[in-house]
């Protein structure tokens, strides 16, 4: 009940603070802060003269806000977004502002906005603030910073406002805006505000322009070592094309008589015409390395950061492998069981990254489904890399199952700094820990160990 009440108030507080930040300049906020202070000390007009400062600051703010009533400008905005962005790496895009007014405009501030969704009560209670432990007790109990953090996560990025010094009447101005993506997946652009401060320089008059767009943000990538697991090349019937079901093989070796069941597209029509019987093209059976990468999506009660790290590691491995004759299978269990293959003639790294950009964690155990999936595909894999989010009993059982497959398996467990693992178990199953705080460092030492 109390939490529900607090949550309802948080909405108001957050919206009010956003309104303040969007509408007031730094000097305006300072003067706004002075109003209650001067008001408190000036409550008794006989004790201090603070009420005079209260009057001045209050009237100044009211005057400044009144000016916004006379702001009647018209603009249009055209955003030119790149194809992709990457988490944590600032990207720039251009924005064309068209001044539809009959007069030139000076000192404009362009504030591009991402769609801000307020989390539900359920999302708020489940949300985890990575800095929670460092916050004071009141902040932790009340949870307002956690809410702000959750909103920032949902919004997914931060955009710096840009100033435009001058736009002539009925002309356009192209400006560059910097966006720092905070999470992977699709960022939704919502609207653009064109603001101009009033003469006193305290309050911003704003014109809000609806301007929707989407931008895909790919996971953060790390430098990964080249896979050096001594997995043997395995036989894949039908060659590369068969392995991927689609596409034509490049490895033609001879012609042979038609056997029932051969696909029609394998028929060599010219020979059929010459010999008057069906002749089919025969392909070389291929042996090649096929890496399997299993991504654990069962997050349990861990923070999202751990899952983000796991996705980033998976993305890094999927993009780092450059062997021409190798295939890469990305496997994970979400709502369904997914297996995506990249390699020669198949999906490229960017496709895999797009998939990984949209992977979501699962909060109910799916380890059993993972086991089933691995058993089905294990005969095709030369090497298997498992990125796990924890090392509990169910995952240990999975590890034990995988070690019986007679293919080299590498287990990586992404951990929070505070987690303590049983070293005996780690050594026995060749499990490598990847710490959240030392991710790159741990990846560097992965194969050296």
């Amino acid at each position: 009940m109390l939490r529900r009440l607090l949550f309802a108030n948080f909405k108001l507080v957050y919206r009010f603070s956003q309104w303040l930040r969007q509408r007031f300049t730094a000097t305006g906020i300072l003067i706004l802060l002075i109003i209650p202070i001067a008001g408190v000390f000036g409550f008794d007009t006989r004790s201090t003269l603070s009420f005079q400062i209260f009057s001045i600051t209050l009237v100044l703010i009211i005057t400044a806000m009144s000016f916004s009533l006379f702001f009647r400008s018209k603009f249009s905005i055209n955003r030119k977004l790149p194809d992709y962005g990457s988490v944590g790496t600032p990207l720039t895009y251009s924005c064309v502002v068209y001044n539809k007014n009959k007069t030139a405009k000076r000192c404009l501030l362009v504030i591009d906005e991402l769609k801000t969704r307020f989390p539900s009560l359920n999302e708020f209670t489940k949300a985890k603030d990575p800095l929670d432990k460092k916050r004071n007790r009141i902040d932790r109990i009340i949870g307002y910073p956690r809410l702000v953090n959750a909103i920032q996560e949902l919004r997914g990025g931060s955009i710096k406002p840009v100033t435009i010094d001058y736009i002539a009447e009925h002309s356009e101005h192209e400006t560059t805006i910097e966006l720092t993506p905070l999470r992977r997946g699709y960022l939704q652009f919502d609207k653009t505000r064109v603001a101009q401060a009033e003469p006193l320089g305290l309050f911003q008059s704003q014109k809000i322009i609806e301007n929707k767009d989407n931008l895909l943000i790919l996971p953060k990538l790390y430098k990964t070592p080249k896979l050096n697991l001594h997995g043997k090349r395995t036989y894949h019937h039908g060659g590369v094309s068969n392995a991927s079901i689609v596409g034509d093989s490049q490895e033609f070796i001879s012609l042979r008589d038609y056997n029932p069941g051969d696909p029609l597209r394998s028929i060599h029509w010219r020979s059929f015409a010459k010999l008057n019987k069906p002749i089919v093209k025969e392909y070389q059976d291929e042996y090649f390395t096929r890496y399997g990468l299993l991504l654990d999506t069962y997050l349990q009660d861990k923070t999202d950061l751990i899952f983000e790290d796991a996705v980033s590691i998976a993305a890094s491995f999927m993009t780092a492998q450059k062997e021409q004759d190798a295939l890469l299978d990305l496997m994970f269990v979400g709502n369904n069981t997914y297996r995506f293959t990249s390699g020669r003639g198949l999906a490229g790294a960017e496709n895999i990254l797009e998939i990984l950009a949209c992977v979501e964690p699962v909060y109910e155990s799916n380890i059993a489904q993972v086991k089933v999936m691995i058993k089905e595909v294990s005969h095709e894999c030369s090497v298997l890399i498992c990125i796990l989010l924890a090392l509990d009993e169910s995952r240990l059982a999975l590890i034990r199952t995988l070690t019986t497959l007679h293919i080299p398996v590498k287990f990586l467990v992404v951990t929070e700094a505070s987690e303590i693992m049983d070293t005996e178990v780690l050594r026995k199953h060749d499990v490598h820990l990847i710490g959240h705080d030392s991710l790159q460092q741990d990846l560097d030492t992965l194969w050296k160990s």
Partner: protein
Amino acid sequence: MEKLGNNTTTNKLSPAPPGLILASLLLWGWQTEYLLYAVAMGIVLELPLFIKWRIDFTDKDINQLADLSGVIFFILTVYVFMNYSFQGIFKILELMPFVLFLLMLAQCYGVQNGIKTSALFISIRRLGENAGPDVLYQTNIGLPYVFICMISASSGNKFSDYFFALCAILIAWMLFTKRTRHFSKLIWLAAVIMAMIFSYITQNGLRQLQNNSEAFFLGLFEQYGWRSTNPDYTSTSIGSLGRLKLSDRIVFRVKTDKPFSAPLYFRESAYSIYEYGSWRNPNVEFDVIVKTANKNEWRFNKNKRDTATMDVAIYLQDSSAIIPVPDNINTLSGKDLIQVETSIYGSTRIEAREGWINYRLGYATDDFIDMAPTDNDLAIPSGYQNDFKQVATQLNLYSKTPQQVINTVRQYFNDNFYYSITQNQRYTKGKYLTRFLFKDKKGHCEYFATATALLLREAGIPTRYTIGYSVQEYSPWQKTYLVRARHAHSWLKYYLDGAWHNMDTTPSVWAPMEAEDRTLLEPLMDLLSWLRYKTTSGDIDDKKEDTSDWLLWLLIPLGAYLAWRFYSRQRVDQQANKPTGITKLVRYGIDSPIYPLLKQLEKEVDSKQPGETLSKWIQRILPANKAERYYNIIRLHDRYRFNPGSDKVLEKELIIRSLALLDKDE
């Protein structure tokens, strides 16, 4: 992951325009009479505009300075609270520019030219570098300091119109530098003038609003409130419903050589006219008592000598107050006192500093010096005349001598009435005493004192209703009488044989009964009160050293520490550091032994061109065979000068040797 705010127009506070800080400090100094400090502080803070060197403070240094400011603020708060209680909030306000001066110094003289939010807020500091740039950033506290100076100045509460005008000018000055440039200055000026005119009207309106609302609420208070110490007027709780409850707060302390044998009455004022639950006096005037020459002493009667003294400590919320004194007061002395006045109704008013003050009371054996009785001291309100006539007849008072009347009345109240602080029944207005005399026969001290006074008047004895305190609770631990708010009492005095005498018909159980309501926290509150009294009150005499400012001594080590911190920091030339901003340039090898030789060459042959290396220069100015011998030394010098990892002692030695060899050859 880095967290950033979004969708905001956040731009950090820009510095205050040159001169504004000095101007605001001058305003503060003028209003609070710290003008000299203000001038000095203002000059110190504006001086960096004219000097180039800066101090390279680390974040840790600034944090420590902020903490130090916090500690100073805490000590100041404790000190001021102890001296002035809640009134001290204005004193703290007045001193705020001092408290924040250290941070301003750090900002003005630091290379960073700002203060990080982590220094100002512990919660942000705890987050460390993980805090996003929307909360952890460097801000300039110049403008906030200007406003703090203005609000602090407002505590001076002088020359309100001038103060308003100066504040308006300072704020306009600040706004002028922050104005939006695309509007003309004329529009800006019109907006500011309009805002200031409306501000002036608003501030007058606020003043008027307070006057009106106060008049309204005071009217309510007069009607329903509890007593106030006013020499002209006192309302009583006669007729009020519910249970009387007075607090356990210690109002004053009385220190005597030995405990009293009976409770001692300290009166505040006496009143002669009773009307509808209130006592009042006509035209009360105070006479100033002349201070004894060369002494902090005020003598009420120059012909009398003190027979005994007692030391009183009282808490004053206002600089002018009526103090409780014994009836036969003869002298008042103490360095805290500024002026002493007395009224014809026996009130003593002093002017002194606010907070706990001490004074010595001297008293004589004779009775007090109040004005002789008037007709008012015999008047009975018309509504009660029949009632008191009936009681007087019943007691046969008309045929008794005054002394017999006194005894009879005392006995009458003692035998027939009992003490009660609870009143449950509502009476008809103007009939409270009738009910008390004939029906309930119970009430608190105001009932007894009022009824007795009016009954004695009916018998022809002039009386006055008196309010004050009964001094009776002795604290053996503090060796002092503690007088609490609940010891407030009312009694009467009657005029007989040419003198006024005290009479109290309230049953003596009143004090224990009221003490039953004391809170469990009373010992703790007493201890706090004692601590506050001990730490803030001075001595009575000038001769003894005043120890009330002992807390200020704590500031000395803090100041010394601060001075050491400032002094021990390396000073940085701002110009030299301009490209790098923060880090100080360390010039290794600046003492290379080759420099005297190079200077000599420059003087004798030709000076080095800008951008020319030493080798090129030597090659240009010297013949090839001679230049050859210099190249090795230049290589050694370059290593000594520019290679931070090399053995400096060895290289210097090698350069010296090579130079010696060169000298030899030449």
